[in-house]
């Protein structure tokens, strides 16, 4: 931009708003010529036709008040105006003008001294304004240092370009940190299968996306370090973006004391991560409905249910007591306890999940809240909180069901359900019932989520020690758990959908592990199945196109 300019004055009053600079009816474009043609149209219809290149706009206080439209300084600049001098500028207009390189000067004295038609000379580097017509000189307030920096850099765009260039030089793109906890039994095999699919995802993305770090957990950790959750494992899990877990446990450790039981390690990990919601999606694809224990007339159309189970409250975590009330007569009790905020956070998450599932699937989301409000006080509080949160999600259809009725409907008409949210004990039972609908536990993934995005992802099945090391385990649960991880912790929903689609495509072609042998056209091992999924990933992979110019 030239340091010195000269031109004739066009003078206007106070509080010239952005609507008068460029009326909103012309905001359906940001084409310069079009904006210039309508500049100041509602204030001075003659302006746009008569303004000469280099002319100077002079106005009173608060110039450019109103909207944030960058079209306002763009219109003035495009009309040929060399500079704007005002007593003061509205805040957003000021930034916009600097960002697009329209010279502006705040100088009440110049405004008072100039009239339309005067000839001015402006030195932008010093802020000096000379009125040739009246032989007067005015001094504009200097720009603050930071504004001068943006000018010096050649505008904000140039400044950002430089910053981006520097950051590209200095940092590799940030990788999602994943703690890999393979565990025991078939855990390592199925996790390896999931990792194979994730590596294929990186190949399709054309760059590294993940940084995997492996840590021991469960029986394997007991064997190596004498504890099922070594400190390094815990620290690694807590400092990662997500945890991908296989399975823990096996008969070898069944006689260990509680603190050395593999399951204890998993329980402690969940607690330390603060996960409060367990997600178990159960999808029965129509072509796999033959594996379901339900009759074809009930399940042939398939089912798609997301169980959201509260994970930190209820009867499992209340006081467990056992007292001898009189000799020979013992009494045991488990307190079922919930607070409003414990209920609210899991219910809110369930509503949010229902909303996004509805958007993705193109149907009205439906949420079934399961309780026993006719008997239990915790259930009545649960129901009240669901109603409170429901008000914030009017597009979600809400249904309350008693747990007994829910169990019945799940086997009688599973298509009725979309998202089911319920407390810990009910969820434990119902999600296993739901899992049985699919016909093989090997098909089911699970996610445990807390606040702030970190999560624990694992297949639903156990460590199946009798299958370990035989390349027979079904890796679908683990691969789908990896997909859930992309969706819920790593903000890669489209990539997650692609993996799910690739799994579905593989299964629908009749490529199965031995557990689904009855429907298989081709029986394959754990790793071969993962390869089959990886091969099919490309056709579902989201295409990222970055246009050079929009």
């Amino acid at each position, binding site marked *: 931009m030239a340091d010195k300019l000269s031109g004739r004055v066009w003078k206007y009053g106070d509080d010239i708003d952005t*609507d*008068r600079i460029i009326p909103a009816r012309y905001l359906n474009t940001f084409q310069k010529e079009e904006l210039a043609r309508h500049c100041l149209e509602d*204030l001075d219809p003659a302006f746009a036709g008569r303004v000469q290149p280099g002319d100077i706009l002079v106005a009173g206080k608060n110039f450019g008040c109103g909207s944030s439209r960058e079209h306002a300084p763009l219109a003035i600049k495009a009309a040929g105006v060399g500079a704007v001098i005002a007593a003061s500028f509205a805040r*957003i207009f000021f930034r916009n003008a600097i960002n697009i390189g329209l010279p502006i000067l705040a100088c009440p004295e110049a405004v008072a001294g100039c009239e339309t038609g005067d000839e001015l000379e402006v030195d932008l580097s010093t802020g000096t304004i000379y009125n040739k017509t009246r032989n007067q000189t005015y001094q504009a307030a200097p720009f603050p240092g930071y504004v001068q920096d943006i000018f010096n850099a050649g505008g904000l765009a140039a400044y950002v370009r430089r910053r981006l260039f520097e950051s590209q030089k200095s940092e590799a793109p940030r990788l999602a940190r994943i703690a890999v906890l393979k565990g025991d039994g078939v855990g390592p095999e199925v996790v390896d299968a999931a990792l194979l699919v994730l590596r294929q995802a990186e190949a399709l993305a054309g760059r590294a996306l993940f940084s995997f770090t492996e840590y021991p957990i469960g029986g394997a950790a007991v064997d190596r370090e004498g504890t099922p959750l070594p400190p390094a494992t815990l620290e690694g899990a807590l400092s990662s973006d997500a945890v991908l877990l296989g399975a823990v446990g096996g008969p070898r450790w069944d006689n260990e004391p509680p603190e050395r039981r593999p399951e204890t390690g998993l329980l402690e990990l969940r607690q330390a991560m603060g996960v409060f919601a367990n997600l178990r999606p159960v999808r029965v694809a129509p072509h796999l409905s033959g594996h379901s224990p339900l009759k074809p007339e009930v399940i042939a159309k398939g089912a798609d249910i997301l169980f959201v189970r509260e994970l930190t409250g209820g009867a499992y975590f209340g006081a467990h007591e056992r007292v001898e009330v009189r000799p020979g007569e013992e009494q045991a009790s488990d307190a079922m306890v919930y607070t409003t905020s414990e209920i609210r956070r899991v219910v809110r998450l369930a509503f949010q999940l229902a909303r996004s599932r509805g958007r993705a699937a193109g149907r009205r989301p439906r949420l079934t809240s399961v309780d026993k409000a006719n008997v239990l006080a915790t259930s009545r509080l649960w129901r009240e909180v669901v109603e409170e949160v429901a008000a914030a999600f009017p597009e979600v259809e809400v249904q309350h069901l008693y747990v007994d009725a829910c169990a019945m409907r799940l086997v009688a008409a599973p298509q009725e359900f979309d998202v089911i949210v319920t407390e810990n004990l009910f969820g434990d039972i119902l999600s296993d019932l739901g899992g049985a609908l699919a016909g093989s536990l090997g098909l089911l993934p699970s996610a445990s989520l807390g606040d702030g995005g970190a999560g624990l992802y694992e297949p639903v099945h156990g460590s199946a020690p009798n299958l370990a090391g035989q390349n027979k385990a079904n890796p679908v649960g683990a691969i789908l758990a990896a997909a859930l991880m992309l969706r819920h912790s790593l903000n890669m929903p489209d990539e997650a959908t692609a993996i799910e689609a690739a799994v579905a495509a593989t299964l629908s072609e009749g490529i199965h592990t031995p557990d689904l042998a009855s429907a298989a056209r081709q029986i394959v091992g754990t790793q071969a199945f993962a390869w089959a999924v990886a091969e099919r990933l490309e056709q579902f992979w989201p295409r990222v196109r*970055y*246009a050079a110019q*929009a």
Partner: protein
Amino acid sequence: MGLTITEKILAAHAGREAVRPGEIVNVKIDLALANDITGPVAIKEFYGMGAEKVFDRERVVLVPDHFVPNKDIKSAEQAKILRTFAREQHLTHYYEVGEMGIEHALLPEEGLALPGQVIIGADSHTCTYGGLGAFATGVGSTDLAAAWALGEIWFKVPETIRFIYRGRPSPYVGAKDLILYTIGQIGVDGALYKAMEFSGEVIEKLSVDGRLTLCNMAVEAGAKNGIIAPDETTLAYVNARAKWPFKVYQSDPDASYAAVYEFDVTGLEPQVAVPHLPSNVRNVRELKGVKIDQVVIGSCTNGRLEDLRVAAQILKGRRVHPETRLIVIPATQAVYITALREGLIEIFLSAGAAVSTPTCGPCLGGYMGILAAGEKCLATTNRNFVGRMGHPTSEVYLAGPAVAAATAVCGHIAHPEDV
């Protein structure tokens, strides 16, 4: 010396213990939004800067709401630029027609805008989210594009003006009347470059809808942001929706303010801003009898559920005056569907109102209620500049939903009590 809530939020996002007014700070951004007017310019600038990917695809929010559903071919092209960008960048929060609402009503509802955040938007009414206790301010498209690329933006830490409201406002006086009264007192540049912090017993009793209305118009006094410290009311609202964890900040008792205004609003009557500045504020009774051709109830200022309830209460069993047109625009789909279930939409239709899908349309003279030469409109919107809603000789009066509904029934500016 203590800090104001605005200073605390900026400090936290600058990775600092404290910041002071006048300092320049670089702050991390929690949300960066654009609409169909400002978005296309930002997108062009974004790629022009050599940027390829937005800093966080969950935190860049695009809401086509100004001229959408598309009012003409050019608008359709702009909406398309937005849609294409959302897909290219895999943005999580792009809202298509049918899901979209007026951005500043939608983001709080969706649990995206939360207390303690720094939110920037290429729309001047981004300051609305201050109603939840966030630092939120409007920026231009180039600033936004830079923020999309870098995930941060520079600000000069604003001085804060504190406004304390006491007393018992009369029935029919709502948040809109409070903010119009305030702008009337301090003028359209009365808070230029500053933060407006609203407090006092009257504010504590406002619903979240009302608080959003109040902060929405801070920019009409020239402010960088408006803000209300979160309390139980705020938490009850955000706890049911919050998409992310958030942090609550309060001003310290010994925070320093550029000025403190105390208003006793006992006996305050409903307020109306007459053409052509939001600061030209009058008591509604002074304007009795001004004939009105069109009434609009809606916008990011007053298109929320509470506003529709207030209007419906007055319109119930009544008809819009034969020489006046009434246009009601629920601000979001959620507001619309809830109003439908509550029977409000039926009341509006029975009263002879036109009810529209969510859009900013008429507020800025885009479409859906443009004024002819010389026509007068009373609107619950936020600006009454020359030509704002149509022909340069048309006029806009600003008021709350109660006065708007009463005016629609009477055909002239009216006090709700006089209906």
